[in-house]
C-alpha cells in the first residue's frame, strides 16, 4: 500500500516536526552532523539570515558541506543553485547570470580565482555556530539543478521542494533506515536520496570528494547502511571491489542509466536478501516510476497504472506529466520544458517486446557514458577540426561496464589511408587530438575510416537514431 507523500514547506520544518523516529545524521567522509543540530546551529559562520531572500549558488568540493548549506537555505533563500563539482568553472558566469545569483556559499577554496562579480560570498564549514533567528517566514525556495546541454553549456532546470519530493513517501520500515548513495547530491539522482533521508528522518552516508570506492564501501558498511542507490555503472564498479561484501543492504536502487539484465542478475546474486529496484527519473521529468520485479525494462501496464504520473509513448518516445516534473528552464533563450498539455518529452526511445517496454537510447543520439551525457555534435565538431578529417559521425556502442561508449566513423580527406599501419597511426593521432579538448568520456574509444557518410536531402548527416 502506498503511504502518503510528505509535504513540508521546507527541509528544516521536516527536521523540526515531532514524532518518531527522531531525525537522523548526515555522515560525510570526515564529519558527522545530527540533522537536529541544524535547528539551532549554522554551518554558515557569517550568518545564514544574511542570505534571506537571495539567489544563492552553492559550490563545494565536499557534498557534505553542500548538503548542510542547502538544508539551511531551503525556505530562506529565494533560489538555490546547486553547482556540481565536476562542472568547469568556465560556466560559472553564465550560470550566475541566468540564475540571477547574488550570493555564493562555498567551502572557501572551490571557487578560488573565480570571478564572483558583486555576489556576497559566505563560507560554509562543518563546525556549527549558534544560529541567529530573525524571522519565521518561509519562502518557497526555487531549486536550480544543472544538467548537460548540447553545446557543453549546462542547462538550468528549475524545481521546487514539492516537485523534487513528489515521489517520496513516509517511511514504512519498522526498523531503522540508513541511506547511502554513490551519486553526488548535486545531481538529481543523489539529491533524491538526500531528500529521502531528511524527509523520512533517516541518516545518510555520503561519499567524500574523490573518495576511493573501497574506502566508501568500507565506511558505508561500518555505518550499517540499509538502503543505497547508484547508477548501473556505479554498481558494476562496486561489485569489482573486494569491499562490496561490507554492505548488507535491504534495498538497492538503480537509476540514471538503463539497467540491463546482467547487472540486475549480478546484484541479485551478490545481495540475495536485498530488494532491488530500478527507477526511471530525469532531472526534467522527475521520478516517473520504479520497477521491482528484477527484470530489465518495465511492464507496459506501468504507463497507465502509476499513481499520480501520466505517461504516453509518442513516436516511440516516452512523455511524462506529473507534479514531479520541473517547472521550466532558465538561461539564454530557454526552450519550453513542457508541451501545452503539460507533458515533458524525455527523448528516451522505447521498444515494446512481449508486453514489456525496453529503453533503446536517446532520440537525439545523446550517449550516456556511465551517467555522463555526451552530445555527438560536440565530439563531431572537434573531430572535424582535425586537418585530415573531412566529416565525422559519432555513435554509441553498448558497454556492459559504462552502459555505452563513444565511437566515431570518419571520412578522411585522403581516402587512400583507409587501412594498414598508416591508418592505425592516424586513428591514434586523431584520438590524441580529441583528448586535447574533450573530457575523457567524450573521446571516441574507436575510430573507423569509412568511404562515405550519408547526407540527407536537407544537407544533414543521416544518423542511426530517431
Amino acid at each position: 500500500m502506498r503511504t502518503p507523500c510528505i509535504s513540508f514547506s521546507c527541509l528544516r520544518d521536516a527536521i523540526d516536526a515531532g514524532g518518531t523516529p527522531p531525525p537522523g545524521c548526515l555522515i560525510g567522509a570526515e564529519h558527522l552532523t545530527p540533522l537536529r543540530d541544524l535547528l539551532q546551529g549554522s554551518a554558515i559562520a557569517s550568518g545564514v539570515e544574511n542570505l534571506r531572500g537571495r539567489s544563492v549558488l552553492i559550490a563545494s568540493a565536499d557534498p557534505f558541506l553542500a548538503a548542510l548549506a542547502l538544508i539551511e537555505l531551503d525556505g530562506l533563500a529565494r533560489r538555490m543553485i546547486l553547482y556540481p563539482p565536476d562542472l568547469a568553472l568556465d560556466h560559472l558566469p553564465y550560470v550566475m547570470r541566468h540564475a540571477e545569483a547574488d550570493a555564493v556559499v562555498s567551502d572557501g577554496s572551490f571557487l578560488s580565482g573565480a570571478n564572483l562579480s558583486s555576489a556576497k560570498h559566505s563560507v560554509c564549514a562543518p563546525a556549527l555556530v549558534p544560529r541567529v533567528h530573525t524571522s519565521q517566514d518561509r519562502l518557497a525556495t526555487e531549486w536550480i539543478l544543472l544538467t548537460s546541454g548540447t553545446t557543453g553549456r549546462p542547462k538550468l532546470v528549475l524545481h521546487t521542494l514539492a516537485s523534487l519530493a513528489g515521489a517520496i513517501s513516509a517511511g514504512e520500515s519498522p526498523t531503522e533506515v540508513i541511506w547511502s548513495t554513490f551519486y553526488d547530491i548535486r545531481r538529481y539522482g543523489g539529491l533524491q536520496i538526500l531528500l529521502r533521508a531528511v524527509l523520512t528522518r533517516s541518516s545518510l552516508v555520503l561519499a567524500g570528494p574523490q573518495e576511493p570506492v573501497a574506502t566508501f564501501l568500507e565506511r558505508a558498511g561500518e555505518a550499517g547502511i540499509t538502503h543505497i542507490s547508484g547508477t548501473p555503472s556505479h554498481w558494476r564498479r562496486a561489485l569489482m571491489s573486494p569491499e562490496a561484501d561490507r554492505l548488507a543492504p535491504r534495498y538497492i536502487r538503480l537509476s540514471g542509466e538503463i539497467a540491463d539484465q546482467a547487472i540486475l542478475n549480478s546484484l541479485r546474486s551478490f545481495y540475495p536478501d536485498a530488494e532491488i529496484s530500478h527507477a526511471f527519473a530525469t532531472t526534467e521529468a522527475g521520478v516517473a516510476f520504479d520497477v521491482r520485479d528484477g527484470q530489465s525494462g518495465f511492464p507496459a501496464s506501468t504507463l497507465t497504472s502509476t499513481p499520480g504520473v501520466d505517461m504516453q509513448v509518442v513516436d516511440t518516445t516516452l512523455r511524462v506529466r506529473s507534479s514531479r516534473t520541473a517547472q521550466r528552464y532558465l538561461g539564454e533563450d530557454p526552450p519550453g520544458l513542457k508541451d501545452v498539455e503539460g507533458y515533458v518529452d524525455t527523448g528516451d526511445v522505447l521498444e515494446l517486446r512481449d508486453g514489456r517496454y525496453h529503453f533503446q537510447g536517446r532520440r537525439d543520439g545523446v550517449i550516456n557514458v556511465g551517467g555522463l551525457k555526451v552530445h555527438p555534435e560536440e565530439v563531431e565538431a572537434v573531430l572535424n577540426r582535425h586537418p585530415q578529417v573531412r566529416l565525422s559521425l559519432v555513435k554509441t556502442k553498448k558497454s556492459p561496464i559504462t552502459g555505452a561508449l563513444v565511437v566515431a566513423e570518419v571520412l578522411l580527406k585522403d581516402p587512400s589511408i583507409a587501412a594498414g599501419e598508416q591508418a592505425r597511426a592516424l586513428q591514434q593521432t586523431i584520438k590524441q587530438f580529441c583528448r586535447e579538448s574533450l573530457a575523457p568520456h567524450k573521446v571516441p574509444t574507436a575510430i573507423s575510416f569509412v568511404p562515405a557518410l550519408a547526407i540527407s536531402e536537407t544537407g544533414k548527416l543521416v544518423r542511426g537514431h530517431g
Partner: protein
Amino acid sequence: MNVRSEILEQFKQVAHEQGMLLAPLSDELPLLDSGLDSLCFAIIVSRLETALDVDPFSQNQGAPFPVNLRDFISFYENAVH
C-alpha cells in the same frame, strides 16, 4: 589466441592511451587498485570482445564480478571455452 596475453596487452595499451599509471600486473592485483577507471575497463572489455569474440560481462547471469586480475582472466577463459 592466448587469452591471458591478450588481456595483459589490452591493460597496458589502454592505460598508455588514457594516460593512466598502471600498477605492476600480478594475479592478485585488485582491479580497483590497478590504476584504471571505469572508462578504461569499458574500453578493455570492448576491445576484448573484438579480439576474443566474447563478452562475459554482457552474458553474465549472476556470476560474481571479477575482483582481481586472476578473476578477470578466468572470467574470459571460462567464456572462451
